[in-house]
């Protein structure tokens, strides 16, 4: 047996191209990070003092939170504006996305059509949401309208990909059976595709709602879309009121948790019955 063991070390991981590329990439990133840390321009900020200040600010935000410029009712209203923005853009996105996704799924549409739809959607998705909002701000002006259109745009492309991949996972047999009995394409879609993928579609839509909710906060701050994002922006950069910012942070956090809980419950109900 000993004779079969080669004298040099045994290579466990094969020295193929993929592994070499990964190793070179990791090495390059390490070198760049070290270079960045050494040559960083700290502008005379004392590292430890600054770190202490940061922790002190966190303490103010989280433990001394209170309202000043806004009432509790205002807070609730502003939060609902942001939720509304997220919900609206998700619904506006989900409906067209469902139909586009039917033409992007390879088991439902011919290859040429799916390729075209997927290419367009990939392009739309590649541009960040904020950029779409600013792009539409050119035509409709900075504000809620631009945010709705831009966020809807990106939601559509995101959901088309998610839905289409859900459809492609479907059991081909059920589609074949309906086709064999003379059902046409739309009938097959609504009698087999929709019932089989309902819970996955719902869950993807909720994921997008969560994304749109957080994007809506950012849009309130950067694109003048209003809502709690705008108040956070005002509190942090205009009034410099960290304590009020703390309340906004808590409000967003609590709502996000409620959203997650609701989504889980809904998915369970849909998954159990249908």
């Amino acid at each position: 047996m000993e004779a079969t063991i080669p004298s040099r070390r045994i290579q466990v991981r094969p020295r193929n191209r993929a592994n070499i590329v990964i190793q070179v990439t990791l090495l390059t990133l390490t070198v760049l990070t070290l270079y960045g840390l050494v040559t960083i321009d700290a502008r005379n900020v004392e590292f430890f003092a600054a770190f202490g200040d940061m922790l002190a600010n966190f303490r103010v935000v989280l433990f001394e939170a209170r309202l000043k410029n806004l009432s509790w009712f205002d807070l609730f209203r502003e939060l609902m504006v942001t939720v509304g923005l997220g919900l609206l853009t998700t619904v506006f996105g989900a409906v067209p996305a469902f139909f586009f996704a039917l033409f992007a799924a390879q088991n439902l549409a011919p290859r040429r059509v799916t390729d075209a739809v997927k290419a367009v959607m990939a392009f739309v998705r590649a541009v960040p949401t904020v950029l779409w909002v600013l792009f539409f701000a050119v035509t409709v002006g900075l504000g809620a309208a631009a945010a709705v259109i831009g966020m809807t745009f990106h939601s559509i492309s995101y959901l088309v990909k998610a839905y289409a991949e859900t459809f492609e996972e479907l059991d081909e047999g059920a589609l074949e059976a309906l086709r064999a009995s003379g059902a046409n394409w739309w009938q097959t879609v609504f009698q087999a595709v929709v019932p089989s993928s309902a819970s996955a579609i719902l869950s993807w839509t909720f994921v997008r709602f969560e994304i749109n909710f957080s994007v809506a906060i950012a849009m309130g701050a950067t694109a003048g879309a209003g809502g709690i994002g705008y108040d956070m922006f005002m509190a942090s950069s205009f009034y410099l009121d960290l304590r009020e910012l703390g309340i906004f942070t808590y409000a967003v956090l609590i709502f996000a948790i409620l959203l997650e809980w609701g989504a889980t419950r809904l998915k369970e109900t849909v998954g159990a019955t249908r």
Partner: protein
Amino acid sequence: MSLLEIENVSKRYGSETLALNSVAFSVEAGEFVAIIGPSGAGKSTLLRCINRLIDVSSGDIRFDGVSVPKLRGAALRRHRTQIGMIFQHYNLVNRLSVIENVLHGRLGYKNTLQGILGLYTEYEKREAVRILETLGLSEQMYKRCDQLSGGQKQRVGIARALVQQPKMLLCDEPIASLDPSSAKVIMDTLRDINQTMGITLLVNLHQVDVALHYAERIIGINRGQVIYDGPPQALNNEQIYQIYGSEAGELILDLKERYAA
């Protein structure tokens, strides 16, 4: 005129594979035909050419006097309503109830909107319930299909095909995923459908003994060609070996048992 006439049908996949090679036979109304042959012989392709789930490469198929390969759109849908199909893996929409799956057999008769919304007439629903009762599934009517056993699922598949009021049933390995007792129930049901309702049956089977026991006529296929076409009584061991492309004694089945029984 025969119900189904298949003339020199060939099906080519790519440039290499010839799934069907000049297949020709005809089937009279009311016949019970079993198609046997090894895996990959072209049995499933043949069935799917008849209802045009697969397009033929050359040749002609005439069903009830209509040439199938040229059918398009509404005419193709009408053709498919005439032919029910039953699958090895049942192909039900698992998340829907039994009765909804059965009513899917009516989709070919409905317009797009009725089909999308699942609007079926009272007559159609009564028919579905009646068929489920005859197949012994009335208690499962509102159960979801993923709660059924394999034998029950296959009976739902048969009910879905029957509610089409078809002239012919294509059965693609209907018992290949079932235990022997469920398989017997399904085969007895199919024979009953054939004898009492006069529906023509074309059944792909892996089990030669089952084919010999139930069918009135056997078609043996190997490498896309018809090797045998005749009554089960005339089929001898030599021909079975030819169909399965194997030497004597290499098959589990031997016909001696049949004569002994």
